[in-house]
């Protein structure tokens, strides 16, 4: 047993505080310690993206982030984007445009897409494809994922214009 470290973090707006070995991986902190099971375990080598979460405003693969690196961080997972009754526009778009099949990659895919649209609110199809290239989907062939993100971008831009 290694020495434990005092960790504080905000997860989906909620303050969390606990003792953990610094080498604990963030994906286990989320899934096993905090019972936040939306981010999934896929490859455990940061290639598949099923565990993607937002950490201090950046997309990260939670399977290769130590909990010590996340001390004091603000973390958003798929659970923090919306609930089944009040979905984020990206969640609605993935649902309505068939941007999923088995659904296992979906939480990571959508979490990554939120950052993509922050970085580039009006991406071309090509930009979406390259911007999402760190997340593997084995089912859909990506076509409907790209469509979903395009649709969400249009929706979010229209809402922003209406608000201005």
């Amino acid at each position: 047993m290694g020495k434990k470290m005092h960790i504080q973090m905000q997860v989906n707006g909620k303050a969390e505080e606990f003792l953990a070995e610094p080498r604990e991986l963030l994906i286990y902190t989320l899934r096993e310690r905090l019972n936040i099971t939306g981010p999934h375990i896929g490859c455990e080598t940061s290639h598949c993206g099923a565990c993607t979460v937002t950490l201090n405003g950046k997309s990260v693969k939670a399977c290769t982030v130590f909990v010590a690196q996340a001390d004091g961080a603000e973390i958003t997972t798929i659970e923090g984007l919306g609930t089944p009754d009040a979905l984020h526009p990206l969640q609605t778009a993935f649902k309505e445009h068939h941007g999923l099949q088995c659904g296992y990659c979906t939480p990571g895919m959508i979490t990554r897409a939120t950052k993509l649209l922050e970085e580039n609110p009006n991406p071309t199809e090509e930009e979406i494809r390259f911007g999402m290239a760190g997340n593997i989907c084995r089912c859909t062939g990506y076509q409907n994922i790209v469509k979903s993100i395009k649709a969400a971008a249009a929706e979010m831009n229209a809402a922003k214009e209406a608000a201005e």
Partner: protein
Amino acid sequence: MSIKGGVHQDLIHDSAAKHVSGRAEYTDDILEPVGTLHAYLGFSTVAHGRITSIDLSAVRAAPGVVEVITADDLPGENDVSANGMHDEPLFATDEVLFWGQPLFAVVAETRDAARRAAALAEVSYDTLPHATDIAASRAAGAPLVTPPLTLKRGAVKPAMAAAPHRIKGQMEIGGQDHFYLEGQLSLAIPGEDEDVRIFCSTQHPTEVQHVVAHALGVPAHSVTVTVRRMGGGFGGKETQMNAFAVIAAVAAKRLNRPVKLRLDRDDDMSSTGKRHDFLAEYEVGFDDEGRILAVDGDFFARCGFCSDLSGPVTDRALFHADNAYFYPDVELRSHPLMTHTVSNTAFRGFGGPQGLIVAERIVEEIAYHLGRDALEVRRANFYGPGRDLTPYHQQVTDNIMAEVVDELVATSNYAARRQAVLDWNAKGGIIRKGIALTPVKFGISFTATWFNQAGALVHVYSDGSIQVNHGGTEMGQGLHTKVAQVVAEAFQVDIDRVKITATTTDKVPNTSATAASSGTDLNGMAALNACEAIKARLAAWAADKAGLPAEAVVFGTEGVSVGDKVTDWAKFIGAAYMDRVQLSATGFYKTPEIHWNRDTGQGRPFYYFAYGASVSEVSVDTLTGEYRVERTDILHDVGKSLNPAIDLGQVEGAFVQGMGWLTTEELWWDDKGRLRTHAPSTYKIPVASDIPREFNVKLASWSENREPTIKRSKAVGEPPFMLAVSVLEALNMAVASLDGYANCPKLDTPATPERVLMACEALRSAPAPAKVLEIGE
């Protein structure tokens, strides 16, 4: 007015809202019961050898370890083979047959402790020579894991001898890892008596039930297997879950605590089966018009250390070695070779793609030889009236291949684009282009005829809500959505009233694997039959009460009408309950018409065929071998689609997965017999930036299954996987342009940039071209 969510409608996946919000529960998300322990495996570190000593004392002494389980600790047989061959030990005891073979299991308080402990085993081996690939296996005498098959019609030798042209060739076809995003895992919870309940990610709960019962030495009734959904399966969870479920169950019963086993991805890729690699050796005889006269073929498969599903997989390769083409005289032989690798298994297409791709290569070879557009050769050889008998003596009766191809030729603007590609290449630059149109004809049904059965259980509750259970499993393909649509349509109620529940062996017994694209065909029909049974009881009751004939009772969108009186569904059901009508029924279905005699190689193994075609255009950098798929157009036949949106998703996903198989996904074993591409870091799976830049996918809207399948639809899971062959043959053409299309470059698969570059170099160093491709009209 129509109901919401009936058949032939675009409907979102039944779990979509949960998927997008992270609330869909996978097996790994199930809250672990108090006291759950974690198991892990110790793996062999030689590809072939005898175990001389095995010392597990350090494993037992490691922190957190509760128990170590070896073959001696198994209550039943040390065997997880599902086919009765008894050739698949759970743990290797004396002889190790592949690198990564499980030797023992360790159970600890945490998964981390179990993994660390498993690495502490001290095992010595007398290493023995190993054969990990097809060539080495043949050199070692070509041992077979299962009896081979021969398909034969006519007399191939004299037909070949008399043919005006003959070509002999060979093709190497790579394997493929499933890379289901959710890896293999199993949670076993012990119960009273001999009972154990297993939650796991499997396409075949009944088989897990049987294999676990066998290993525990208990009757099947003591084991219950439940799966709500999988994070992808693709065939990789048809038999491959068995061992992990057994270990969890054995440990759970032994320790009387819940036990969970989830493999690390690298171990998952190293120690579970994959798509079979093949080597095909073929000879084709043909006439001046490119019409095939005779085909003789040998199909060698890397099967791994045991039989698993290699028999039916290699059979299916032969069943599809004709693709859509009539071979007047033909002989095809399978060689399911034993190799010192993990046992290969089911993977979308199940050997079919490896057979089909050889038919396409044969056609390409003929086209290059005659200097024609391969499409002309394809058309000249399609099955048609009078030329409609397959190598397994089943008659092709629908013959819609040409219709599919004609439509795609028109909508993809094939002729003009091919001319443009030829013109581009004629300029002689570094970037070369290629375009190819390839068809798919795929036989639907399990070739193990008894597998073509399904059961369902439908409950109508007294409030009018409906619960459906059936033997199929949901792995993302939308099976549950389609079955719910069938049920909603049968009762003429909105789909919101219908709830599909987890697949579980204590609700519907003796199920078949959700495989062979058959999930909806079989389970949809079984569910419909259950609904019809309930409707018949309701109609008899209501008619009797009203003094009318049963035909006077109509289930309509407004409710149930009895004569001129219409009653709201929920009220109608409530009244039926009060009058003591049984509102629950089982349904059963077995596919009619099919039969197959493997000894004679004759029968009707397939109920029907699904068709499709694709055109792909590629650009190749001939100095680096790198390439890009510029555009793909697909027209695919799913009969009268139950849910076009879901079917389109299946077609797109299958195509991209097929493209991965043929282009970037390379399995590579080193000289010690270790798989070195055991993670997505080294094993390249297509990502969003790899798909065709323009991707036009359509369903053949005019198609309708001629057989009375569920609502005249057709299976969709596997057939579109093979549409990706157009990418391979387009790459082949781009390379061929380097010497004026005088030679077929015969790209093996996967056609990685490295292989493409080597093919370019081979042509560059070849003598100058003697002839130029004639362009067909």
